[in-house]
């Protein structure tokens, strides 16, 4: 039986269907989760998708973290279950304190949509084992508030513990500190990523299939866990 991966829809989520499609393309069973439903329906892994939850009129992700489903997501994460936050989902993970730091308004002050080159720095997380460390991949980046920020001590700790999952190559698109595009928690089960791997799973509709590895990684991981 394929691993079941849930994708949460908050009001204002946009890339939820894309994440569901990516799970399916990777060979998993996609499961829709609803923000107001505290049940994770027994899924093996959870994705918090991109979008503008609640319009992001306050701080990005600041309201979504209080959704009933988030209690269950936090519990799932604390017990080692894989969670991937993409873009707005990354912001929700930071707001929920599952990951350190914050995502600020882009350095250029504008929303930007690019085919972004990244280097995978940590290929051991639940979401990145399909890659090799140092692999260079191209994945869609699209955000207005994607500048990763944390204090120096936190940044040093992230670096020392190998918790930087991916870094921007070429020009830093949003002014993220230390070119950070994604990070993980101590356990390597929770990953936050500003770029959108779910938009790089088909050559027809994306810049390539470099993003598929995030989804195949977690399926393999879930297989090992069960």
């Amino acid at each position, binding site marked *: 039986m394929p691993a079941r991966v849930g994708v949460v829809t908050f*009001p*204002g989520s*946009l890339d939820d269907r*894309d994440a569901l499609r990516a799970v399916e393309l990777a060979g998993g069973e996609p499961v829709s989760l609803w923000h107001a439903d505290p049940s994770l329906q027994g899924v093996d892994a959870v994705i918090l998708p991109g979008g503008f939850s609640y319009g*992001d009129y306050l701080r990005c992700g600041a309201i979504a973290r209080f959704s009933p489903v988030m209690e269950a997501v936090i519990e799932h994460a604390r017990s080692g279950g894989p969670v991937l936050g993409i873009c707005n989902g990354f912001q929700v993970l930071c707001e929920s304190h599952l990951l350190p730091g914050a995502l600020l308004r882009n350095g250029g002050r*504008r*929303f930007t949509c690019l085919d972004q080159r990244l280097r995978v720095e940590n290929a051991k997380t639940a979401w990145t084992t399909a890659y090799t460390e140092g692999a260079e991949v191209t994945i869609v980046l*699209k955000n*207005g508030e994607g500048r990763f920020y944390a204090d120096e001590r936190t940044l040093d700790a992230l670096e020392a513990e190998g918790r930087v999952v991916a870094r921007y190559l070429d020009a830093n698109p949003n002014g993220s500190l230390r070119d950070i595009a994604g990070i993980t928690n101590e356990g390597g089960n929770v990953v936050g990523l500003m770029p959108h791997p779910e*938009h790089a799973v088909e050559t027809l509709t994306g810049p390539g299939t470099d993003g598929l590895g995030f989804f195949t990684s977690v399926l393999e991981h879930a297989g090992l866990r069960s």
Partner: protein
Amino acid sequence: MTTIEQPYAELGLKDDEYARILDILGRRPTDEELAMFSIMWSEHCSYKSSKVHLRRFGDAAVENARVLAGIGENAGVVEVGDGLAVTFKVESHNHPSFVEPYQGAATGVGGIVRDILAMGARPVAVMDSLRFGDATAPGTKRLVDGVVAGISFYGNCLGLPNVGGEVVFDPTYAGNPLVNALCLGVLPVERLHLAAASGEGNVVVLIGAKTGRDGIGGVSVLASATFAALEEGSESRRPAVQVGDPFTEKVLIECCLELYERGLVTGIQDLGGAGLTCATSETAAKGSGGMRVELDRVPLREPSMTAAEVLASESQERMLAIVRPEHLDEVLATCRRWGALATPIGEVTSGDRLVVTWHGDVVVDVPPKALADDGPVYERPMERPRDLDALQADTPDRLPRPANGAELRATLLRLAASPNLASKRWVTDQYDRYVQGNTVLAAPEDAGVLRLTESGSGVALALDGNGRYTRLDPYRGAQLALAEACRNVAAVGAVPIAATDCLNFGSPEDPQVMWQFAEAVRGLADGCVEMGTPVIGGNVSFYNQTGDVAINPTPVVGILGVIDDVARRTPMAFTDEGDTLLLLGTTRDELGGSEWAWSEHRHLGGLPPAVDFAAEKALGEILVAGSRDGMLSAAHDLADGGLAQALVESCVRGGRGARVVLPEGADPFGWLFSESAGRAVVAVPRSEELRFTEMCAARGFPCARIGVVVGDELEVQGQFSVPLGELRSAWDATLPSLFG
């Protein structure tokens, strides 16, 4: 009793229009009724100056089995196969975008999206056609920044991929920017919703945002007069611009789609320009005619609003649904689940009166058809512009042309870097083109291509216009816009099937503008018959002028095409070394209204290129066949800037050079920069070359081998060459350096 004069003139109504209202009602209108008439009979809502001309689209509409809904609905609908239909429409938000660029452009997107939603469709893509004053003029940067950021903010937050469009700079649009937004939606054929309120006892439910004081007078005053005609400066008109809340709209979309899915609404209408006035009178007029609305039940942002203000408010993100009483609870529960406010505000009644009460008092009692259908219709006087003969006689022949390879090279680079031809990435990178996961092609490709089904069928969309061509010859200019949009759709491999138009003109009260309008409509209607692409919806924007000076008449045409397998789409990039380059079509010395004449010499005169629809159709069929049979690696339509610009774009996009050879005896300048219509350049793998050229020969269509994809420079043999890097920096640098 003394009769106090009613303020109808301030509301935009003319003396004879007011007299007609008295006649219809047989009494003085109440304040509320007067407000409603002024809105519904405004140019914006009633099309009173354009109606007699727009009939041509209907008269000329070819019998087309695909068309499920046409002009007169919120948006036209065409069947595209696999049980699916597509609805699309382009609409202007010009005046609001000048007064308040960010919110004006944002709510332009919001408005057109609700039109699409009102047809029962899920919105799946947007596009914009934007025109500003001279790129370097003071004030342009502010407008560009605001408009692009507004579209980006609203469209991205709705999760709608932005797949193409245009950005044009020309001093004619200084003070009158054009912001035309297009939305495309998809629906199962059987779910088509029409905006009719029928069934006595059915409940009228207002869904979405609370009603506030924003946007009052938007259509009657802002969109139906020139700024100079407004007594105060445009800044004081800011309250007439609505304020957008895309999150509420996103929730509204998902909520309405669930209501459709579960069959819970019998009719639906969006609230846009003209707000509740338009939504209630139009749904009532299209249904049986009777409706009773308890206006005080409308949730207000501002409790001190008057009844007339509630009726006139253009607050965004609202829909009006007609619901059977037995479904009401379920509708309200669904809205609650999505966090969308829903309030029953009235019911469908027998009879033919729209009755509005306010805290128990009847404030409106009118036949809705009088509001919606019986507005004034004008046959405005027309006169051929007095300067047109002189303008057409002033051909570009007198302009100095580059005389040698070095001058040609410099011209090509200057044009590639000119604001109109330069890369628009600075704009399009602010838009999300990937969301929803079905974008197969997006800007700067010739057309946007979207996958609709898992089996790979899809649609293509292009949006084109050329104000300079239309200024020189409105009939031909409108046809050239149509021809270019069709060509763009065919270039990616799709068959053009339907059109939408946004007609941007000066004041209809100027006979010379009215003549331009009538000629453009006639040209477009005739052209649509020839191309088999009926106009199924659109919008007219008049009063785009400052003082006596109107903008160049600018009809913008959107074309929808269908493609069986999106995997077969043809991109514009030269990617495969060794591919043969073929030029399809006939190149004449046609530089009237060209980008070269304008950009290099600030010259606008002569006649625009000739249109030959038979050739356009033949070219389209060749491009579609080439795509379907896998014969093409790349195709790019030739338009502004001619062959030279097409080669620059395809080389840079693909990161490959090209070597091209002038045909025997050709004038290098004309060959490179003429803007003759009906042409495209294609890259064909060697293995397919014979098959492709034989297909062209069999169809009697001109096809010339002009070179090969090779190396890392663009070389015009015997004339000049430019390294790819130099091309790329010329093309890419302009907009970032202008707008930061």
